[in-house]
């Protein structure tokens, strides 16, 4: 457990939801050495944010989100020695998480060929979730969630990163491995598609 190690709390800002800039260099150095304290700090600082990001990308499925978060942190741990400080730690983690979500949908697509009954059951679960959503949050949010879930994955990812995570285009481009110009185009198409799904007029 984390208590067995001397976890250095010096990396954190008073807000404790990110690593402060001055301490980031030391933190990255420790992380590259896979210092147990730094790994625990990485996890404690970012696990909730990464979970939330993944959770909305996979249609609010807790089990799938948990699996992907686990894969994300294990992959981060394995590649920690290669982290070269060219991006922020959170950007690096988001990029791994985004790739893991894409891998999940690729695997699902392959498996879909062999699924018959399971797909039907999944649809039923989806309907129940939607009904619960409706009762819980009202029509507007339920409509938005349904529209978001029905978008292609890269549209969903770019919209969540831009409007929920409030990231600048440059940071999104690093996460998604595309040029900023390509992200701008993707955002335009994603917004258009979202409006169409919600049956609302386009921007002028």
């Amino acid at each position, binding site marked *: 457990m984390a208590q067995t190690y001397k976890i250095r709390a010096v990396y954190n800002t008073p807000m404790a939801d990110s690593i402060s800039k001055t301490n980031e260099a030391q933190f990255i150095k420790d992380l590259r050495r896979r210092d*147990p304290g730094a790994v625990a700090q990485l996890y404690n600082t970012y696990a*909730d944010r990464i*979970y939330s990001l993944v959770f909305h990308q996979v249609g609010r499925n807790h089990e799938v989100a948990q699996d992907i*978060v686990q894969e994300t942190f294990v992959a981060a741990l394995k590649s920690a020695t290669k982290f070269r400080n060219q991006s922020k730690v959170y950007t690096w983690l988001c990029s791994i998480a985004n790739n893991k979500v894409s891998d999940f949908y690729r695997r699902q697509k392959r498996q879909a060929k062999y699924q018959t009954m399971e797909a039907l059951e999944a649809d039923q679960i989806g309907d129940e979730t939607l009904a619960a959503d409706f009762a819980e949050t009202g029509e507007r949010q339920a409509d938005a969630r349904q529209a978001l879930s029905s978008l292609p994955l890269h549209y969903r990812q770019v919209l969540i990163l831009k409007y929920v995570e409030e990231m600048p285009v440059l940071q999104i481009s690093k996460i998604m491995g595309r040029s900023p110009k390509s992200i701008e185009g993707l955002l335009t198409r994603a917004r258009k598609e979202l409006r169409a799904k919600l049956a609302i007029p386009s921007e002028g």
Partner: protein
Amino acid sequence: MAGLTGENEIRELLKSACPPAAPSPEFKDQLLQDLTHRVEGLTRPRWRQPKVGASIAAAVISAAIGYGIWLGQAMEATLLP
């Protein structure tokens, strides 16, 4: 929703549709424990890692058996007239 035309309205709508979510405390504890074990495995000296350690042990045992056989044969050759 007819007024949803600007970027701010999309932001507002998506933010309300995607509020922060958190994993269960049990899952968080379990994953932290798992990561801690993995770190221990990864930071251990190479020769102390299970696969490497087993290979070294197998090599040492094989060498000892080989040496025993060779020694037996050598002794036999020395004792025979």
